């Protein structure tokens, strides 16, 4: 009785085979024709489909470019970067040199559009040159912090277990110390040069990156494609760098723009307290110098202060824009 019923199923099996055969055979004879086809009808449906290779990327770019705040931020940042690059051409010579009578107010002398400070130094030259140090320190400290943070976070998140426990404790040690106090102590111990300031800022900022990277790695480690990669005999390094890291990047990119902003702030704060490199002009040190005369010449603190505000604001706006564009939670079609 049962065997007869099984018989019908076996019959189905025979039915299936030629049917799928036919489907499998169809593309084969079509294939040689295909080049001729695309030559004749150049912009056909297939071409439009193949044009979507960068669809994912393009959509994110579109979201970012549709965000006016982010565009505004990008414009300001480009302006700051441009002035930093062109500083030696616009204002050759040392911006710390005395060039005119002290306390020239902005607009008083067309040769010094933003006036001079208490020592007769050109404020505009100071701000333009100050952009150099702010951006260098901001970018270098972020790059360094990202490298260290990603390396430690990736190892902790990927391997887990004892290594994870040890590294998390290590990260927590840094997080329990107030970061600015640590920064001041580090710079006070070392010589205050641009390099040491950069390294010190990186030291206080990597734990955030490490924690974020660890969290991302822990989540992505369990994904099917990582398991699949493992089943294909991929080594740990390859899985970390090829499979997991590219998928963990969006939140890290967003964080890094905010990190640049906070590095610039930290550098300014250090310089303000006189702990920056004394031989280079920085926005923070300009504010610090202007503080003594804030009642009589408030523009000396306000102008470099505005430079900091706009630069940090632009980076935060870019960070928000990137977040909207890259964070899958805010995009519907993923």
């Amino acid at each position, binding site marked *: 009785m049962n065997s007869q*019923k099984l018989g019908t199923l076996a019959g189905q099996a025979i039915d299936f085979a030629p049917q799928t055969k036919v489907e*499998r055979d169809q593309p084969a004879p079509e294939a040689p024709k295909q080049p001729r086809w695309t030559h004749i009808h150049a912009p056909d449906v297939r071409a439009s489909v193949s044009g979507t290779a960068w669809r994912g990327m393009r959509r994110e770019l579109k979201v970012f470019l549709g965000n006016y705040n982010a565009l505004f931020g990008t414009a300001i940042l480009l302006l700051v970067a441009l002035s930093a690059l062109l500083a030696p051409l616009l204002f050759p010579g040392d911006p710390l040199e005395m060039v005119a009578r002290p306390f020239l107010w902005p607009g008083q002398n067309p040769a010094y559009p933003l006036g001079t400070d208490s020592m007769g130094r050109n404020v505009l030259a100071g701000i333009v040159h100050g952009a150099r140090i702010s951006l260098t320190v901001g970018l270098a400290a972020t790059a360094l912090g990202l490298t260290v943070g990603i390396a430690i976070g990736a190892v902790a998140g990927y391997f887990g277990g004892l290594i994870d426990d040890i590294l998390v404790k290590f990260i927590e040690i840094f997080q329990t110390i107030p970061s600015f106090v640590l920064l001041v102590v580090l710079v006070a111990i070392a010589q205050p040069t641009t390099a040491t300031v950069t390294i010190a800022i990186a030291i206080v900022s990597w734990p955030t990156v490490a924690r974020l990277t660890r969290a991302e790695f822990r989540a992505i480690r369990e994904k*099917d494609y990582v398991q699949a990669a493992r089943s*294909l*005999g991929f080594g740990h390094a390859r899985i970390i760098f090829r499979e997991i890291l590219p998928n963990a990047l969006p939140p890290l990119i967003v964080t890094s723009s905010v990190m640049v902003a906070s590095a610039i702030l930290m550098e300014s704060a250090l310089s303000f307290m006189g702990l920056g490199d004394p031989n280079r002009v920085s926005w923070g040190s300009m504010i610090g110098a202007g503080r003594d005369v804030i009642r009589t010449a408030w523009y000396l603190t306000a102008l470099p202060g505005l430079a900091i505000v706009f630069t940090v604001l632009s980076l935060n706006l870019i960070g928000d824009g990137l977040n909207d564009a890259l964070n899958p939670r805010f995009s519907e079609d993923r």
Partner: protein
Amino acid sequence: MAKLLEVSDFSVGFGAAQPVKGVSFSANPGEMLAIVGESGSGKSLTALGLMGLLPRHAKAGGQIRFDGRDLVGLRERDLRRIRGRDIAMIFQEPMTSLNPVLTIGDQIIEVLRIHEDLSRRQARERAIALLDLVSIPEARRRIDEYPHQLSGGMRQRVMIAIAVACNPKLLIADEATTALDVTIQAQVLQLLDNLRVQLNMAVILITHDLGIVAQWADRVVVMYAGRKIEEGLPGEVFDRPYHPYTNGLLSASPRLKADYHYRDGPLSEIPGSIVSAAGEKGCSFRPRCPVARPSCASVVPQLIALPAGRQVACPYVPAIAEKAHVASVG
């Protein structure tokens, strides 16, 4: 013929719990072996054990002889050389098993270049040939597409292309067609079967779909609660299921009763659910078994070898076979 794979007394434990308890089976070169069982029967863990991909806190015991080597306790480095080259695996979810940020070509090329000494150009040509092999139309153009541009069936084909890239001797398909709809399922299984013949590889088909087993498998292993309870040729096992669990599975499967419709009456079911794998004595199917006897509570039934390679882990075979026959007639 020498066995390609011989698993003997393989077990997996997580602390006190033991989801796989001494499973033994073997696979010949070029054979399609099906492992069936409900969720929690330990079939997927067995598959992961074959790949050496068990979670770190799992303890594997027993022996897995593959091509003359014991895979249990092999060093990670040696295992890595076997994975992807000698044993490959296809996973259940084609939607998530491909890395979303790499093109499918890159993913195939990467496997080829890890295991074989190929230049990028050669690997690319091989990747195109592989995509052709798994019947992806316009392979030369498709190779630069990203996974999100492909349908589920296409992605599973890409997964298969990646899995067979280095000509493995054994391919494990862990519920590889469960997430696909029925027509695509048939195509993918047909493809697997063709590749099995073309590349002379053994395929272990892990599934809970008895229709697939009946149609494609050369041999079937039924698992329940971490043990193998029945093994044999699919025709024989489905024709005369000896173990009460297999019998229950078959009568709960609507496909095998062509003239039966759900409107005619409720589909029969196996009462209860798979019991916790921890700390129970005797036969693990006893609480749900319609023909359980008092002695089932104390003794774990051993596998009984029957003619034609058939094995069953129930001492009351003749009685049950008779009863099943009567039930199906009545």
